């Protein structure tokens, strides 16, 4: 089953006729996507929910080039990125991971992390790593996080808490212009308060920079409260796709019911 893109005209991200099978020709073979289609309009904030193994994270991995597609095409902003290497995707896709350790470099200081990210897209040559003239700009950006990090520029990132690191990762990954922001259950490893903070920060950054965003989450409340489109995945297909008005009438209870219904099919 596939949902045809509704507003194809201004779609920024297009996944077309995607096929993906894990462990082919073995007893563990899992046929996940068969003619899967998804398109995301420019500036749209999409939340994706679904049970384990429904294919949400695989969508992100395919978009980022972490794993290859079997067949089909993926385009972002008109560019065919299906066969690019993972690091080549990063030039226009920013990704925040579930693991707060992945989005920053623990041994380097906050300042060095930001300087590295600030230079994304430029040459990593023998010029001075930290541009002194930019320090004030970094400080201003850190102030927006309201975590007091602006006074700890020379502290190594490894000594920050998970929530602080995730907020920093989010900031770092949106420092330079990107076409698409991917949030991979980025609040899942945090305590409820930090995860609420990071989610509010996400909302603010996404709206301010008008970023096209794809967020995978296990938190149904976040999926309802944030974003302008909600997609529910089940066994490699979209079972619910609610945009704008449709989404605004959805409640957590509707979603939980739908969720339980598909979970029952799986015998969970």
């Amino acid at each position, binding site marked *: 089953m596939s949902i045809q893109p509704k507003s194809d005209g201004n779609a920024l991200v297009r996944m077309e006729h995607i096929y993906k099978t894990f462990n082919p020709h073995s007893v563990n073979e899992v046929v996940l996507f068969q003619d899967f289609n998804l398109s995301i309009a420019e500036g749209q904030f999409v939340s994706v929910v679904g049970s384990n193994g429904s294919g949400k994270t*695989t969508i992100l991995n395919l978009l980022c080039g972490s794993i290859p597609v079997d067949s089909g095409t993926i385009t972002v902003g008109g560019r065919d990125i299906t066969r690019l290497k993972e690091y080549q995707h*990063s030039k226009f896709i920013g990704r925040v991971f579930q693991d707060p350790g992945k989005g920053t*470099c623990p041994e380097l200081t906050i300042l060095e992390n930001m300087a590295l990210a600030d230079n994304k897209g430029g*040459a*990593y040559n023998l010029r001075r790593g930290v541009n002194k003239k930019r320090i004030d700009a970094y400080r201003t950006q850190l102030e927006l996080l309201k975590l007091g990090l602006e006074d700890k520029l020379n502290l190594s990132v490894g000594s920050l808490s998970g929530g602080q690191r995730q907020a920093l990762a989010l900031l770092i990954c949106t420092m330079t212009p990107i076409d698409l922001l991917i949030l991979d259950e980025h609040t899942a490893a945090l305590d409820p308060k930090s995860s609420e903070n990071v989610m509010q920060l996400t909302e603010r950054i996404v709206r301010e920079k008008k970023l096209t965003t794809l967020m995978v989450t296990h938190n149904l409340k976040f999926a309802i409260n944030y974003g302008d489109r909600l997609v529910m995945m089940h066994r490699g297909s979209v079972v619910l796709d609610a945009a704008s008005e449709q989404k605004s009438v959805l409640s957590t209870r509707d979603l939980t019911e739908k969720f339980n219904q598909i979970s029952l099919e799986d015998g969970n």
Partner: protein
Amino acid sequence: MDIALGLLINVLEEGFIYGIMAIGVYITYTVLDFPDLSVDGTFPLGACVTAALITAGVNPWLACLIAFVCGGLAGCITGFLHVKLGITDLLSGILVMTGLWSVNLVITGGSSILPFYNRNTIFNAGPAALLPEAASPYRIVIFAGIVCLIVKLLLDAYLKTRSGLLLRASGNNAQYVTSLGKNPGTMKIIGLAIGNACTALAGCILAQQGESANVSSGTGMVVMALASVIIGTSLFRKVKFIKPTLSVVLGAILYKACLVIAMQLGLPTNFLKLLMAVLFTLALVSNNLLSGRRRKQHVNPTQI
């Protein structure tokens, strides 16, 4: 008293020379997190290249530069095997180390020892000839120290550049380098080139000190370099104003001092390599005990 001074000078000479190698191995082992065994091959490579060049009448300082570049190329091969051909880090190093044995023999023209007595070296020609007669017993320690200092300062400066920061990031969190749109594999190759270039330079300086190159001088260099790095970084970790590049050189000097003391106490030369291995084991164990108490919570990367 004179004997003690002589020993001290000897320890410092060799400590500075092996310190250059320790700085290189610090880049591969600590910064890149890459256990690089090709060091056992690139050390004599530097020595053999130097012997061949100096015998041919090349300026000894130029020979240092060429040995440095040759070591870098050997490091690139290790990196290529690991990054592009997908061979494990340990095996890539072993392959290059094994291959270099033949390369070194080709360079020396088939002999396992290539002497170049009474030729120009950095210790007796060029700037060294300007030293007053009174300083002559100290010329080796002075010039080995100068080369070591230059290498240290250059690497300190490099680690602060954009490329250097990216190198540190790629050893620390390769995913972060990928997120910046850069290939972490390329940075690994660069780091291995730097590490092996420094090692070959150390081999070059040692050959000039002894005025001969020995094809088998590489045996045990990995152990010696790693021991210096681990002793240095674990002892001086807490001292803020000592940079890691300096602490590994101090580690090399301390390690050399232990060996010299053991020899003076009457340990037969045959036991030298065994002692090196035992000292390294002690360094590793004490480092584990020290860091066990303050080990950081390691976050396991979650997949899919």
